[in-house]
């Protein structure tokens, strides 16, 4: 998993570099400062989901299956809010501001970077939901905690990437 994450980091780095490279190089509007708003609430949701998934893992390690399911459910819920937030943001951008991936360089880099991250969130959510399903049916035991830990590692990675994306897109790029 660590190796996979290294490879993924390399991919993200390239997209981030492309984003930074093209900041302010768009030939036509809309520009980021006109349309982007800080997604503070969803960011908090996503970051706190890192804590909940960690809690789920430690709960499982201690053999508390019910607690684990609870924490997992919280994680999925928080991740879901994040995705919903992103979807809402995109809906506004596309239909209110007319910014699509074709519009200009900002659109190109914004949608691809945020979209790449959102894809990873979705993958993570699917995996977490599966884990939740297993744990609710009582099939997840203490001995599976290592696997859940790998999954949580991935989730932490996705969160970590969001911090970078957030800084680059919403702070630096605006």
């Amino acid at each position, binding site marked *: 998993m660590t*190796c996979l994450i290294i490879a993924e980091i390399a991919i993200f780095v*390239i997209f981030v570099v492309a984003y930074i490279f093209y900041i302010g190089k768009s030939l036509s509007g809309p520009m980021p400062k006109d349309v982007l708003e800080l997604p503070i609430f969803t960011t908090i949701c996503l970051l706190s989901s890192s804590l909940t998934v960690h809690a789920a893992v430690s709960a499982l390690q201690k053999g508390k299956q019910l607690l684990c399911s609870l924490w997992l459910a919280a994680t999925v819920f928080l991740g879901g809010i994040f995705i919903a937030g992103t979807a809402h943001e995109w809906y506004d951008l596309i239909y209110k501001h007319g910014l699509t991936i074709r519009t200009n360089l900002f659109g190109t880099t914004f949608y691809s970077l945020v979209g790449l991250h959102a894809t990873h969130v979705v993958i993570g959510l699917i995996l977490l939901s599966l884990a939740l399903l297993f744990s609710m049916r009582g099939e997840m035991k203490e001995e599976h905690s290592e696997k859940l830990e790998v999954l949580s590692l991935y989730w932490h990675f996705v969160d970590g990437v969001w911090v970078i994306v957030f800084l680059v897109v919403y702070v630096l790029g605006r």
Partner: protein
Amino acid sequence: MATQIPVNELHDQGAQAPRRLWLEMLHGWVTTVDHKKIGLMYIGYALIFLVVGGFEALLMRIQLAIPNNHFVSPEVFNGLFTMHGTTMVFFVGMPILFGFGNYLIPLMIGARDMAFPRLNAFSFWISAFAGFLLYFSYIGGSGLYGAGSAPDVGWFAYAPLTARVFSPGHSTDYWTLALLLTGIGSIGTALNIVTTIICMRCPGMKMSRLPLLPWIYLVMSGLTFVAIGPLTAAQIMLMLDRYVGSHFFDTQAGGSAVLWMHFFWIFGHPEVYILVLPAFAFANEIIPVFSRKAIFGYPAMVAASVGIGFISLSVWAHHMFTVGLGPGGNTFFVLATMIISVPTGIKIFNWLATLWGGKIQFTASMMFAIGFLFQFLVAGLTGIMLSVAPFDWQLGNSYFVVAHFHYVLVGAILFMVFSAFYYWYPKMTGRMLNEKLGKWHFWLFVIGFHLTFDLMHVPGMLGMPRRIYTYEADRGWMIWNLLISSGAIIQTVATILFVYNMVSSYFKGPIAGSDPWDAWTLEWSIPSPPPSYNFAEIPIVGSRRPLWDLKHPDDPDTDYEMGQADPQEKQEEGA
């Protein structure tokens, strides 16, 4: 100093098993998760593409043999060099090296399989599918526009030539998809190799006792993660550009063509080292065995490999000295590129020192390894010349560069791959390759190689750029090109000999036995070909060369490592 290696006396099961239906065998191969079978499939698949790519090269050389030739049209020629480059790098180089790695690493570290056998099979099939997809473009490339065509954007596919405007049709899409998929396959295999080497070594095999081949594969796999990522990202961007209409590399909307160059070469140059490191790995196993000496300076070799791995990540822009980076950028990459010659030089000196004082046996395998040493030396030196930016302003993108990198890819890597074939073929099939044919193969190939690639430096210096489908008669390039092309034909003959040798030896070659070369690493302790479980009993090793210890109990390697408070002191005594 308990050194115990059970040398298995198991007989070859394959010979006695009743003949199965070919359909069952096919089913067995397709569904296998055995690292040896997957390794062999990788190798076989790479060999098929080697023949295809070689054939493409031959067509190009026929076209260039005389000026203003009309053997193939410019469109076809541009497709040929694109396909030749892409095929040779992604569908010959990578799979053949991954194939050997797959086959040998578990055997050398005393494991029964790779860490993730299913992932392994997945990686192979996705890479194989990618190769198929690339060649499918010959049929489906232009889509509705008419007959198919190959992608014709060059193997590094500089933007904006790849944009929809300049490359209509679907052939470029096939190219992009093929690279994307094979990249995923490579990451999968690399992940597998790293995990296997770190987690599955047999008892007693500390990292400091790991044979150099797995060591170097470890470095190479690490490099693969970091290098393939940018390629994948860049291909995704290109796909978005072509399908969704985004503007990453669209210069009309403010996009940058230079960005693609950076992204591609961030992958592209480490890729060269990904390809050449396994060649070093083979040399590290083969040269000592046929010199009858331990490798000289094992720690230095490991350090040099790791060093090459790291430095190779910071040299990419030496492909871009002519795009106007400015003097600051240029000099940085000059320095990085020159520095990488230091660890590479260390390796060459260590191999020489290994030969020094040995008793060199000139088997076909060893001859190819020596060819590798010589040619790699030349390639390294022309590389230093090209790393000098003003030199590169003149010679970059000319036939001098073509000659230089073919010296690396053919003169070093392909020679070492041939060497590896002669060395490990007995292990893989249980039969020896014909030595006499092997020597013919070597001499013909050496002559053809030098005729082609030595002389190829000259038209480059005379001003012949690469990737031109024809040239004018009055430039004085003709005689050189004619000789180069004739060298290509000699190489073809040599390769046919090699293929014939492989096929005929499979049926008629002398039985190899488990250890035909009197070698020292673990794969030679088990029967050839190895049973599907590899080791009946997981071996326990006590040194870098377990079989040496077994064969020479009076002078074991272990003396140089253990039982000494300061192993380095002992090493110096040895010197």
